[in-house]
């Protein structure tokens, strides 16, 4: 079962690689995505029967994250054939292999029970997405790729060092190979705190770079700005999710070692800093994708803040992973359609998108309202939950700062987005032949509908899964 | 049963008959005093009655610009003081209609009159009448708080927002709270003069339309509507005068002292107005608002003084 999770995408990647060039290569993606999603669901349903202590296991935390990533991937995969059909000049092989490779590696990260394997999985995820960044094959995308590669590699090196620090602490605590995560958590109390603290700082900076917490997020706007919306979705909804998961794995060790308060302060600080930074750079942002990139930075900040507040907020932060990923996919895919139809990313040229592209435009508007935390969409639940837990637990300053930043970000973001959507389309820029088609809009509507469902109804099994995952994060079995 | 109903009925009858019959006398007295001061014989005291009778016989001329609102002005300027007269205690201990909050109703009734008179003025499309209307609504903004600060003072003195107990308490309270009451009286006299367009704030007899306030608004009325306006103005003078007079007059409780005292007071007030009109010049328009601000300040200080007492 577990190996199927990892292998299915890799086999599909191989299939794509050996297929003849043509659009049918792209059609493998949705098939693989749906199968993978089904496998994840089946594995989650059976997860109670799996044995602890193995190298690979799908626990509630990893399962939840993988479910999110698999869903996002499937949405992108459904979008891919219609999108790639618009770009027949490109070779789909690399694209498909990289996408599927990412999914396989993400599955590896989610199921690995060993910090080393976890790290290897993350590194592989990073590398598999590099070709996607260079998809447009121009100077700008090359620059973005270079920055992504270097900043993230440095970050991954730091994360590796952090992992070694933790392992050294485990060694001092009397643990030898194999240092499964479960064993680390169980024996955390005996490890020396200086090493753990230093390790967590390194891991926070390292995986934080990958997540895109400010000020290590600098690769994000460039990378998101120069890639197609579909790649942006995978980066914003997939790679960051896995980085967050990796960070949480170590956070739970820290929490079990009694370092929870220390880590939480760091997380709250980083979270608020990310939101502030994102706010500053969203003001008068002239590029739609870069705006979304900063929104992604903001939401990574919200995740860090939520875990940093602790208690119920941890659960909401985990929920926010899904909420953010779903809505971000609406926004990224929608922005792809809008940018394509106006054939410009420069917002000065784009207006009246809701008239030009009714479906994409409306989805984008609703997505914008959703991402800033308006009910009835999923982000409302998590943002309200995090804010209320912060204030309710007496962290008045942090909580009010959080809400004030959200208000400021809303203002900055909306003043850029609404002029794009409203008004009359600029007659000079309506020359493209692009039109909304079913294949290009159905994934958006589907993602929005999912965000709506999650925002109004959280099924019992999901709630159980989330609360068990939150317990795991807090270092409790 | 009959005895309990008889007293209010008698009061109602006496008060309304006296008001409706005697009100046009007040301008007559004012003008007579002014004439005497100027060394003239002047028009007879009953001049307004003659004027009303003459106007009622004449036909009216309406501008083609006007609509139905044009006649609502004169109608309201009669109906409002008529209704208000029911609420104000005159010779009796109480008014024919008296209830908690009647003071507010009284103030707002005059607002009704102002509303329709101003609209009637605007209805003609005349520049002068528009100007008068603008001034009317502007000065009301200061007159209202002055009136209400006085009411607040009296309400605290009497314990409730009903005119009859308020004014009775005021009449009785000059010994205990002379300072506040004097300030309220100042405020109300100013309001009384402004609202009735008397010198030094407005000149009902001027011939220069540019300086007018109230008269400018009724320039286009003629015949019976003008009669209604003039009669309404005298009723208003009477009702507001009654407020001022009752503020100063202690209530004895015996009708044959109270009623003559009240009527005497009204006469005295009219004479006083005449004297003021004779010895003072009309203020410049800018001064009017300053005088009204003085009235507001005076009313406010009255209230504050009462708080400290």
């Amino acid at each position, binding site marked *: 079962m577990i190996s199927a999770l990892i292998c299915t995408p890799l086999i599909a990647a191989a299939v794509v690689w050996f297929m003849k060039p043509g659009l049918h290569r792209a059609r493998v993606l949705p098939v693989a995505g749906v199968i993978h999603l089904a496998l994840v669901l089946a594995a989650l349903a059976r997860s109670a029967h799996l044995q602890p202590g193995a190298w690979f296991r799908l626990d509630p935390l990893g399962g939840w994250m993988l479910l999110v990533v698999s869903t996002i991937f499937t949405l992108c995969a459904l979008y891919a054939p219609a999108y790639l059909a618009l770009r027949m000049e490109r070779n789909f092989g690399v694209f498909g292999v990289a996408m599927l490779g990412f999914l396989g590696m993400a599955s590896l990260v989610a199921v690995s029970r060993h910090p080393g394997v976890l790290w290897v999985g993350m590194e592989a995820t990073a590398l598999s997405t590099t070709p996607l960044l260079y998809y447009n094959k121009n100077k700008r995308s*090359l*620059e973005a790729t270079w920055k992504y590669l270097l900043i993230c590699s*440095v970050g991954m090196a730091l994360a590796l*060092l952090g992992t070694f620090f933790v392992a050294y602490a485990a060694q001092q605590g009397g643990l030898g*190979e*194999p*240092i499964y995560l479960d064993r680390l958590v169980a024996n955390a109390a005996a490890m020396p705190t200086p090493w753990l603290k230093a390790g967590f700082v390194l891991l926070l900076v390292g995986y934080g770079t990958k997540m895109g917490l400010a000020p290590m997020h600098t690769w994000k706007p460039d990378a998101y700005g120069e890639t197609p919306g579909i790649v942006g979705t995978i980066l914003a909804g997939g790679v960051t999710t896995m980085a967050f998961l990796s960070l949480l794995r170590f956070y739970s060790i820290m929490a079990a070692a009694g370092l929870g308060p220390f880590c939480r302060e760091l997380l709250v600080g980083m979270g608020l800093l990310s939101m502030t930074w994102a706010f500053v750079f969203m003001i008068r942002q002239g590029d739609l994708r870069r705006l979304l990139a900063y929104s992604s930075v903001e939401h990574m900040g919200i995740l860090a803040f939520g875990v940093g507040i602790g208690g119920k907020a941890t659960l909401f932060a985990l929920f926010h992973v899904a909420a953010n990923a779903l809505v971000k996919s609406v926004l990224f895919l929608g922005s792809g359609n809008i940018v394509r139809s106006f054939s410009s990313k420069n917002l000065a040229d784009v207006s009246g998108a809701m008239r030009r592209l009714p479906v994409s435009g409306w989805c984008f508007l609703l997505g914008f309202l959703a991402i800033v935390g308006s009910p009835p969409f999923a982000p409302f639940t998590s943002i309200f939950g995090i804010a209320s837990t912060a204030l309710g637990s007496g962290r008045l300053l942090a909580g009010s700062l959080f809400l004030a930043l959200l208000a400021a970000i809303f203002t900055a973001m909306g003043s850029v987005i609404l002029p794009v959507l409203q008004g009359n389309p600029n007659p000079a820029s309506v020359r493209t032949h692009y039109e909304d088609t079913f294949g290009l809009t159905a994934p958006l509507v589907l993602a929005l509908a999912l965000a709506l469902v999650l925002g109004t109804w959280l099924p019992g099994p999901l709630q159980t899964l989330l609360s068990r995952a939150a317990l795991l994060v807090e270092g409790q079995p | 049963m009959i005895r309990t109903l008889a007293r209010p009925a008698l009061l109602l009858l006496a008060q309304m008959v006296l008001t409706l019959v005697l009100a046009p006398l007040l301008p007559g007295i004012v003008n007579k005093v002014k004439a005497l001061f100027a060394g003239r014989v002047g028009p007879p005291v009953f001049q307004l009655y003659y004027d009303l009778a003459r106007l009622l016989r004449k036909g009216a001329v309406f501008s083609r610009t006007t609509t139905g609102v044009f006649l609502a002005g004169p109608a309201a300027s009669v109906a409002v003081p008529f209704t208000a007269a029911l609420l104000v205690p005159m010779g009796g201990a109480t008014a024919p209609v008296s209830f908690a909050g009647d003071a507010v109703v009284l103030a707002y009734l005059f607002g009704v009159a102002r509303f329709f008179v101003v609209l009637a003025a605007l209805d003609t499309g005349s520049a002068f009448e528009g100007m008068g209307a603008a001034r009317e609504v502007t000065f009301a903004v200061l007159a209202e708080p002055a009136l209400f600060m006085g009411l607040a003072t009296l309400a605290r003195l009497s314990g409730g927002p009903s005119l009859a107990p308020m004014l009775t308490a005021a009449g009785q309270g000059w010994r205990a709270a002379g300072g506040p009451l004097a300030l309220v009286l100042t405020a109300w006299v100013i309001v009384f003069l402004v609202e009735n367009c008397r010198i030094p704030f407005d000149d009902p007899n001027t011939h220069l339309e540019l300086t007018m306030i109230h008269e400018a608004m009724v320039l286009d009325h003629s015949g019976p509507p003008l009669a209604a306006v003039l009669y309404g103005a005298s009723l208003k003078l009477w009702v507001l005068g009654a407020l001022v007079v009752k503020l100063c007059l202690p209530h004895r409780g015996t009708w044959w002292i109270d009623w003559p005292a009240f009527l005497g007071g009204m006469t005295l007030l009219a004479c006083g107005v005449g004297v003021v009109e004779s010895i003072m010049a009309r203020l410049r328009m800018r001064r009017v608002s300053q005088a009204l601000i003085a009235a507001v300040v005076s009313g406010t200080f009255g209230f504050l003084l009462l708080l400290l007492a």
Partner: protein
Amino acid sequence: MTPNLLLAAIMLINFMLVASSRVSKCIQLAALQGGLLALVLLLMHDHWPFHVLLMAFSTAAIKGVVIPAMLNRAQDRMKPQREPEPYVGYTLTLVMAAAGTGLAFILARRLPLQAGNLGTLFVPASIMALFTGFLLLTTRKRALLQVVGYLVLENGVYLFSLLLVKQMPLLVETGVLLDLVVGIFVMGIVINHIQTAFDSQDTHRLAHLKD
């Protein structure tokens, strides 16, 4: 015998790296550092089982030979051109490296070592290499030098991992080797692209994407 002597040598190489202005020299120094790392690994073990030998060999081969050769090739392929001035001068960088060394020692004092490694310079050396790597990455304009910086940074991580190599060889081997090989390999490809696209490796020119 403690490995402190070798560690001190590695730290010295760091200073030389920071001070040197020529790319080829930097590559040589980095290769030398890689070789020394393999020696440290061997020194840490009393007897050398196969997997230790294999790891030492592969370290020396990859860090000391393969990657430097690759970088040299990239350097040779480049048209001769003036070395762009670094963002921060060489003297100042050297001072910063010295300050970083001091900090590394302070930091190391806070992190107690296990009984077996007491008194060794692993932690300060590792942190210092990390810092040197960062210095190269942040002050140099040439893409190739930045890769060297990354290499030195990796050496720092590797140095620390040697503390774990006895008990947790698996963790170390998977981590270090994969990271290095794959990372540098991909960077090499991208540098090639940059060379073709921009006709230069001056990363100062790679600043079109900004806010």
